[in-house]
């Protein structure tokens, strides 16, 4: 067997996005680099950053803003196959969007769901510790868990809220069905509880995926359901037809009161997103979508197009 399989890697996505919301078009080039560096047999450091420019229209031209920062920076210590201890700044495992789908090269749409901010305590990451792993890993099912706490931090790079929470999910590999529950509680300011549930189903032998999430906070709740597929009927996934990936997402949010403590729209909102993604060779994807958003504060059309390239390479040539 080959040696030196543990070379640190650099990976991530580079994208150029455009978004036309109610007639105003903004542009955003961005890069999200990630490094994963194993140290010894049991330790690993991983970190992702985001660097972006955004160009927004104003009455006389374009306004332009810049952002660069760490998304997370954590150390993972593998205690045994059932337990990994994570320390540092880590993505909060609440439902699935934040820690699984948010990288630009993964998400099927340019923007996250309307409820994406529920349960992730405004920064999306915690500063503290997490125990995580596979509780049961059986041939026909597996159960995994994550339990974490976070301290309060005003650090510019790693803002965090004092909170704790966890997630557990059951995965049936034969059915490719996953169901999970999430919970967290903010321990500063209003002690708010957040509850989440997710269901993912990706039937074997098809390139069809159905993903959904429900989240409820003290002041708002909502859900999204997303389906996407690629057909294998016209010469396989890598034929020119097979590279098309239609995506549909339906979202609804409901206010429970008018306290503005989360990023959920201030009035009940319904939104339907229709996308067509095209998977080019060499890890490049074109994302396009049209969304119609309905609410009592007005209905809008949102058009988005973008191109994303995913990169992945070793940091240096092997020994």
């Amino acid at each position: 067997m080959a040696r030196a399989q543990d070379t640190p890697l650099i990976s991530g996505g580079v994208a150029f996005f455009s978004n036309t919301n109610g007639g105003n078009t903004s542009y955003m080039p961005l890069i999200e680099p990630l490094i994963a560096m194993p140290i010894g047999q049991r330790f690993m450091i991983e970190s992702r950053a985001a660097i972006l420019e955004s160009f927004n229209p104003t009455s006389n031209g374009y306004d332009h803003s810049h952002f660069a920062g760490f998304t997370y920076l954590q150390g993972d210590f593998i205690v045994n196959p059932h337990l990994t201890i994570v320390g540092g700044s880590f993505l909060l495992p609440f439902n699935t969007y934040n820690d699984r789908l948010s990288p630009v090269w993964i998400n099927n749409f340019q923007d996250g769901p309307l409820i994406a901010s529920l349960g992730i305590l405004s920064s999306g990451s915690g500063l503290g510790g997490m125990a995580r792993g596979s509780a049961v890993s059986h041939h026909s099912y597996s159960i995994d868990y994550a339990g974490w706490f976070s301290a309060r931090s005003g650090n510019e790079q790693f803002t965090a809220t004092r909170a704790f929470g966890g997630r557990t999910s059951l995965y049936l590999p034969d059915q490719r069905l996953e169901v999970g529950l999430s919970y967290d509680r903010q321990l500063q300011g209003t002690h708010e509880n957040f509850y989440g549930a997710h269901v993912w189903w990706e039937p074997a032998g098809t390139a069809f995926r159905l993903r959904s999430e429900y989240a409820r906070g003290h002041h708002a709740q909502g859900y999204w359901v997303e389906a996407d597929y690629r057909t294998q009927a016209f010469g396989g996934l890598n034929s020119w037809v097979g590279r098309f990936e239609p995506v549909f997402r339906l979202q609804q949010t409901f206010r429970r009161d008018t306290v503005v403590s989360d990023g959920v729209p201030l009035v009940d909102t319904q939104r339907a997103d229709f996308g067509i993604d095209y998977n080019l060779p060499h890890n490049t994807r074109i994302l396009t979508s049209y969304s119609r958003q309905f609410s009592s504060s007005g209905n809008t059309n949102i058009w988005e197009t973008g191109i994303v390239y995913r990169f992945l390479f070793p940091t240096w040539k092997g020994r």
Partner: protein
Amino acid sequence: MKMTSLAVMLALAAVSLAPVARSEAPAASNGKTETKSDKQQKDQRSHQDQDDGERIFEANCSRCHNAPEGFSPRISGTIVRHMRMRASLSAHDEQELLRFFNP
């Protein structure tokens, strides 16, 4: 009014999702056969591991994102270590995947 247009959109979406291809049967998703004699098992070992690794790869690695199109074997261990917690891999899964990535 709002609800009707939403319903129309839903119907459109349902129609567009109808022809989801189910034509290609899953390769080896029914798991392993455990009835072989020891000797046979030994003879078939490397072949089976390959299949097992492939099965684990297919069942786990395209769930959250498109499976990588290929990468240097030098980072296969790093990738498995990075994904083990996310994909909830057992120690056995990790071994089989490494074998699958480094035939």
